[in-house]
């Protein structure tokens, strides 16, 4: 899993992510993020990287 900066325009992507969620309630936003996760997972296509990313995403959340 690559944890070094790899997004060419970080501010631009953050702004686009926020904009995509604009006006959505929490549930619709969760659906959007799930769709995004699945689309991105298919781009990565490497099971080990995907599982590492899942672990990393979950690690700081309450158990």
């Amino acid at each position, binding site marked *: 899993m690559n944890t070094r900066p790899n997004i060419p325009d970080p501010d631009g992507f953050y702004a686009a992510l926020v904009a995509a969620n604009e006006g959505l309630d929490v*549930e619709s936003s*969760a*659906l959007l993020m*799930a*769709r995004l*996760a*699945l*689309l991105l997972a*298919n781009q990565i296509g490497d099971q080990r990287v995907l599982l590492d990313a899942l672990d990393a995403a979950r690690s700081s959340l309450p158990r």
Partner: protein
Amino acid sequence: MTDMAMGGYALPKYPFREPPEIAAGTPSRHPIVIVGGGLAGLAAACDLASRGVASVLLDEDDTIGVRGASSRGIVYAQKTLEFFARVGIYERVREKGVMWSKGKTLAGHDVVYEFDMTTATPSVQPPFINLQQFYIEWFLVDRIGEIGRTDLRWKNRVCAALDRGDHVRLTVETPAGNYEIDADWVIDASGLHSVVRDGFGLDPRSAGKTPDRWCICDVRFKKPLPIERWTWIEAPFNENRAVWQHLMGDSVWRMDFQMAPDADPDAVSRPEVAAERMRRQLGSDVEFELVWVGPYAYRSHCLESFRHKRTFFIGDAAHVMSPFGARGGNSGIQDAENLAWKLAMVLAGHADERLLDTYDIERRAAAQANIQVTDRTARFLAPRSKAERIIRDAVISLARQYEFARPMVNTGRLSVPNVYPDSPAVRGPGTSVQNVPITVDGRETTLSQLARSLDTCFLAIVFGEAATDADGLARTLAAIDASARPIRVFACGLALPGLPTIGDPQGKLARALGLGAERSRMPIALIRPDLYLAALIPAGTASELLALADRALGAAAVVRSEA
């Protein structure tokens, strides 16, 4: 309501005959007693009988089927169909059943994805045939009668089992009184509520969570529907819960409706309620007749060992899984097929009893794999939280648009032969060899017909090219073929003195074995009696072949071949 009232099925009634032990007043002793005449138990008896092995089968009922003419397991997969071909009931299954290859998965009114499995299979048997379970059991009972080595005792209910070291004593209840019967080996195929298993204090570990509730409707229509497997993840006519639609024999359709978690099983299966559901699905103008209606709950469990001393557990007595993908009935039959040849070899003195341990190694691994696969389907169909439902909605919505998400839509992964881990009987991963057309000494046949024509033995097939100089290997292999070991040797693609030849004109045998260019280096395929590849020896040597065979057969092979 009886099955006659609903569907017009009259299942056969088999006569009860007073067991000789009752008059004799003493237990009789038998090499093999099978408890339970469902799919798995009948398959075990039929396979053993076809291998020349006698058994006693005790069944508590006097007919086939469960709860009347319920369709139960309806999809029979290729490995099972190949088994049917080997034991001699395939033609009847093919004539009565329905072949299908197309499927659709729907959400709401849209097809999310569809598949067609008509892609050429090297097997003589198709990927699937649908048929009501009671027909399979019926054909097996008939076939067992034809072969004539099974003492099939109806209305014989086993009520206690006691392991006595070198045998198991079973207590049996009959209309004419109780009796005891001793068995060197017991095959327990008595299902979910096994008295034998519970009597030994063995507790199947529950692998499942909250059971999902469904209602089966077997139904006959005037208007024909397409011969395809349709699954709705979210059916508008079932309050957006799942529905299955599958054709079976006699133009009867199997409809499975997922119920609300708190649904009353009796209420949802009342005929008028079931009929109303059918009208919502098909329109009020469609004429239909309900054949059978009944509720059931999914669950899964698995025994920690499929062998307990002299008792083997097969089918639902050993493992229970959700029915997605038709893995229950098919795996019960494949349990029977895995065990029968091993018992046959041990009883014939061709193999050590240790061979029997590989039944647990191989089939418990298969059951665990099947439970994992079916639990994943169950979870896809019944999300356990709001968050989980959102993830599923994301998959379904993407699957409508994009191909990549369609493999994640999980309405059941259809039964395939399980891959076996390494055991003394297989150099893992052990894969099934399909029943391919071949010739033997120029005569057209199939791999399973060849296996059926021989005593229970390993097939060793050496591949090569006509010009190969292999006199030395040929002499050694011919000696193995002629030895007391249960191995018959064949040459494919080349003629070796003293050995029969197998022809593979369509290349399907090589394909089924995964053999490519290495064919010229004289690989030897060692195939088990259940048509699993025990090992593929890349550049064949007789010593490696012998080592593998002796690992499976143990000291018995060595002692006998030296005698």
